[in-house]
């Protein structure tokens, strides 16, 4: 087998060569203009939500460092516009299914900072009563159907939720979030394939932050444009960069509308970037400082703030007081998490099965 070699005689994989050639715009996404229609009240609300999520995650990083939170902790810092924009396009009766990087999705779907932090602290007042942890935030009332820890494994489940909506003839839509790392996974393809075949009211949203753990996209996918998979499954597709929360909302709303009105699924790829490592143990050394700094220029929170001031003439004072309120809310949530009672043994025993096995402690 002949290996292609560079002039220095060092092997460079073909994808990498292609990647280098396309260095100007490696993902080949056209830079988007910001969304057209801007409504002050709406953007303020979305901005506040993004900021709350950011502050919650910063607080959780701090608590993690203090040893108050255990396990894995995956932060979505830098990606807030995707979950906030997308979920703002939903009705309350619509469903969300997410990954382990889902603190933001949980809050965007109506959950509170308190519930997230208390769950991370392993407390009974947490989203899942301390049974789930950071990766498994559930809220039945809000139709937040959880975060899942098996990469790609939740995609068929989300299709099943959409199946149920269609079976019952409701107009509910399901949003299924996953990372770029799900795309090579079998479950991803089986779920999307069935959704396409049965025309299920669902929108598949790939939050392409360009890395799966330490592996850049070009080393995991032969075809970098994730949405090319849509054509093989007979579903619609869309692809854009996601730092402007309103643009995300606008584009996801189109896909949601399509799902609701015509039961056609859409595969949407939103290009984004996580500013931190994959999880708390990852310093992210596989990326250059320049690359990270470049993306930080498009921090969704900064972009939102600039639009509020520049286009909507929101005063600095108004924003400062909003920001202070968010900070106070998150501080209060940290206190709440810290002071809440530990997770309940009774809830644990009763959450294994509806009719518990013989006393599980006995076995």
């Amino acid at each position, binding site marked *: 087998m002949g290996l292609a070699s560079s002039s220095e005689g060092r092997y460079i994989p073909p994808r990498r060569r292609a990647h280098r050639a396309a260095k100007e715009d490696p993902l080949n996404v056209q830079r988007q203009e910001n969304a057209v229609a801007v409504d002050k009240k709406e953007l303020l609300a979305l901005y506040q939500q993004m900021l709350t999520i950011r502050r919650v995650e910063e607080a959780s990083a701090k608590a993690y460092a203090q040893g108050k939170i255990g396990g894995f902790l995956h932060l979505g810092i830098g990606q807030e516009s995707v979950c906030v924009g997308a979920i703002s396009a939903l009705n309350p009766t619509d469903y969300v299914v997410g990954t382990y990087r889902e603190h933001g999705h949980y809050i965007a779907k109506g959950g509170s900072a308190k519930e997230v932090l208390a769950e991370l602290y392993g407390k009974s007042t947490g989203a899942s009563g301390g049974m789930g942890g950071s990766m498994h935030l*559930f*809220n039945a009332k809000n139709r937040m159907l959880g975060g899942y820890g098996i990469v790609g494994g939740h995609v*068929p489940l989300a299709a*099943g939720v959409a*199946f*149920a909506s269609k079976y019952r003839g409701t107009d509910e839509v399901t949003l299924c979030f996953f990372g770029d790392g799900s795309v090579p996974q079998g479950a991803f393809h*089986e*779920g999307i*394939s069935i959704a396409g075949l049965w025309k299920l009211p669902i929108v598949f949203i790939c939050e392409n932050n360009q890395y799966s753990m330490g592996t850049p996209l070009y080393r995991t996918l032969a075809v970098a444009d994730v949405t090319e998979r849509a054509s093989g499954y007979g579903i619609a597709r869309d692809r854009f960069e996601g730092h402007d929360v309103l643009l995300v909302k606008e584009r996801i709303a189109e896909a949601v509308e399509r799902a609701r009105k015509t039961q056609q699924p859409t595969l949407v790829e939103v290009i984004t970037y996580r500013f931190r490592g994959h999880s708390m143990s990852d310093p992210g050394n596989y990326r250059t400082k320049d690359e990270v700094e470049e993306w930080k220029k498009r921090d969704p929170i900064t972009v939102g703030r600039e639009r509020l001031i520049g286009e909507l003439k929101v005063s600095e004072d108004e924003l400062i007081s909003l920001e202070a309120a968010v900070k106070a809310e998150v501080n209060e949530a940290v206190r709440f998490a810290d002071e809440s009672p530990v997770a309940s043994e009774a809830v644990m025993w009763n*959450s294994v099965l509806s009719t518990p096995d013989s006393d599980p402690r006995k076995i």
Partner: protein
Amino acid sequence: MRLSYREALNQAMSEEMDRDADIFLMGEEVGHYQGAYKVSQGMLQKFGEKRVIDTPIAECGFAGVGIGAAMVGLRPIVEFMTWNFSLVAIDQIINTAAKVRLMSGGQFKMPIVFRGPGGAAGQLGAQHSQCFESMYANCPGLKVVMPSTPADAKGLLKAAIRDDDPIIFIEGERLYGFQGEVPEGEHLVPIGKGDIKREGTDCTIVSWSKMVHTALEAAEELAKENISVEVVDPRTIRPLDEEMIFESVRKTNRCVILEEGYSFSGIGAEIAARVQSKCFDDLDAPIERINRFEVPMPYAPNLEALITPDVPRIVAAVKRAMYLEKN
């Protein structure tokens, strides 16, 4: 009413689907083809394509679809053409179905039945002859049900469909044609309740699914030598009716566990552990285990027969337990 095991299963699903529109059947070839083993014969005609759903060959995909649908209140019956193929869906079953209830702190139920045939069925070779009850039963959050007769098949499947937890319902591939008396209409067998299939006083044989019938044959043989064997069938592997087993062992003072699958980490190991811990003073002999020998199933009929538990091995084990035979 005399029915085959297959017809009993069909009746259970049909009656339940008549009762509750949230129940549907999904799987490969369940509809137009009428079921790979004809368990769903006539159901498409009766319930239509909305509720008897042919899926593509994507076990991981459709198992996951069932799980998602169950989370939001439907009651899916997911058929695996055989349990061998459930392995490509095992992530969905173990990582999701078994865990959502706990992970959500009890917010979500998982009323889903995964069903299909398991075990060897005659020269099907290594990939199509497997027993998975010990794998699934190892996982808290799942219930594992394995009926041996048409009546149990109907009663347990109806109970499984009404249950709010994920059920692994393993049918005997070799039992589909087996005939038996089945109560008409509302016949429910509670999950977790075993049944004594033959009463006896000298030795207990614990067995389930197809192996119950082999145990009964062996009991018949032994009766000719005046050895009275009690055959107990837990019917549900998890939760296990251990009290029924303990009671029988306390009466006979001897225990033979007959299992179609492998012994290593098998169900028999679990039962033996419980029996020795709860009936230590009642046992007059070491517990005997009979299992498939530890090789992937070969194709050749002589070898398949060699590694599969059969009547002579059971007879010998019972006699060992009674100190009537050495080794």
